[in-house]
């Protein structure tokens, strides 16, 4: 056995590890291998042609671009929520805390039709925005709104423990040296939060890129305009274009992982630099 098990007097490693590895291989790894291999049935030029079709590029741009915009919105929004939840006491705080997990618990299809009903021209929020000339439902803006909804808890839950662990001494020392609250926030608190903000941004982005259920109802799904990449996979599968569907899936996965690794490295360098 190549596995060097150290520091444990407990039994049961081998069976537990065996079960885990077997299950993981059958349920997660084998299927993902298929995803990475099947596109190449088209040949290299075929894969390239398949993923550079204008409609595919537009969908990828919307999925990644929309998720990035939503995550960018969620960074300050999530920071505000995390800060208020950790630092302040107010009535209804526990309720608000449960509410933050709502997008994680609510099935995506339910969130999707609820957001559509809210932001449709006749909906509670949509009817308020219509006189302002803002159309949300059935536009790319609707896609972003849905991605904000599903991404928020990732930023808040990433930041909360970091805000909680901010050393009070640093803020006190800065105050003793005569810094104002604004200066302390800018020069002491925010720099300490940057790695957490990056991690939260990455988690929200990853969720938004792959999001399907909460987006497709409010998106309107017009090709080239409000069609997301996961929907294009569904459409290609319906046309029995397995390799083409797998090609889009593979590109989505590879780009997501590349972005997450980049953010991870950045985060690492930031937290080591201090």
């Amino acid at each position, binding site marked *: 056995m190549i596995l060097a098990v150290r520091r444990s007097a407990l039994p*049961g490693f081998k069976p537990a*590890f065996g079960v885990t590895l077997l299950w993981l291989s059958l349920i*997660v790894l084998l299927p993902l291998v298929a995803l990475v291999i099947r596109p190449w049935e088209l040949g290299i030029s075929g894969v390239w042609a398949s993923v550079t079709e204008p409609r595919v590029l537009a969908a990828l741009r919307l999925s990644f671009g929309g998720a990035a915009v939503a995550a960018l919105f969620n960074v300050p929004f999530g920071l505000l929520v995390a800060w208020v939840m950790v630092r302040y006491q107010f009535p209804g705080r526990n309720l608000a805390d449960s509410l933050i997990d709502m997008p994680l618990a609510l099935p*995506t299809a339910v969130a999707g039709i609820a957001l559509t009903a809210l932001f449709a021209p006749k909906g509670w929020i949509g009817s308020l925005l219509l006189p302002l000339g803002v159309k949300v439902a059935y536009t790319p803006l609707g896609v972003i709104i849905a991605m904000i909804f599903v991404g928020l808890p990732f930023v808040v839950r990433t930041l909360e423990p970091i805000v909680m662990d901010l050393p009070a001494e640093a803020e006190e020392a800065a105050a003793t040296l005569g810094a104002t*609250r604004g200066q302390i926030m800018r020069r002491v608190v925010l720099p300490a939060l940057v790695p957490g903000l990056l991690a939260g941004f990455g988690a929200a982005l990853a969720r938004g890129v792959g999001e399907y259920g909460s987006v497709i109802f409010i998106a309107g799904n017009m090709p080239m305009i409000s069609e997301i990449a996961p929907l294009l*996979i569904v459409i290609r*599968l319906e046309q*029995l274009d*397995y390799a083409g*569907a797998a090609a889009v899936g593979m590109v989505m996965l590879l780009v997501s992982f590349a972005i997450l690794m980049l953010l991870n490295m950045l985060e690492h360098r930031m937290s080591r630099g201090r």
Partner: protein
Amino acid sequence: MNRSATQESRSVQAVLIVLTIGLLVAFLLLPLVVVFTQALKDGLAGVLDALSQPDALAAIRLTLLVAAISVPLNAACGLAAAWCVSRFQFRGRNLLITLIELPFSVSPVISGLVWVLLFGASGWFGPFLSQHGIRIIFAVPGLVLATVFVTFPYVARTLIPLMEQQGSAEEEAALTLGAGLWQMLWHVTLPNIGWGLLYGVLLCNARAMGEFGAVAVVSGHIRGQTMTMPLQVEALFNDYDWIGAFSIAGLLALLALVTLVFKAILEWRLERRSGGLL
């Protein structure tokens, strides 16, 4: 020391709190409220009527069936995975954790797509399956596989931090006193992790019953046969049957609420217990 430099002023605090509550209500609470108001537009009778339609009942039954198969499988494997990761140091441990969490970072649609690539009509094993008259895609086994893929990480993810924090001292004591592996698991490990395990199973179940993207790809949308509750919601919504769609959505939203309430209770229990110890 200047107090106002380590804390926001009262008025700033009030503004931030109001802003936070306003944003949370608009973005997170309103969608939930909308589900119930839309469902109840024609009163409770409309909801009951919508939920007693044969297709709705079939969707509820299928959702329960798929969850009843997937959740126990993932609970058992999640427990095994948590035991390895939290109790042993071995090479590749971090890789194993990454792989366990991998389904979280895969789009739900891709989680369904991979099974079509394997078992669909022109999938790798498709010809073999059709020769032997076995249906996986557009049938219950496909729905189960897609659900198992997306819910795989939940139990292990919930248990690993809890078990790492508890440490293995009590288990080692049980072994020293002559307990066997199963005795130790049954009398020491399970009672210790009981609430965490229950919460992990509940999260796993909530996702299993609410999963949409992955099952949408493998279901084939055969009404009354391969439609789970979220898929039925989509079908009814696209048919402009809003009361029907929001009634089933309301059931799913209730499940989400139960999960959140349970989480709150669990956190309160854990806080109280650790508070008692300190």
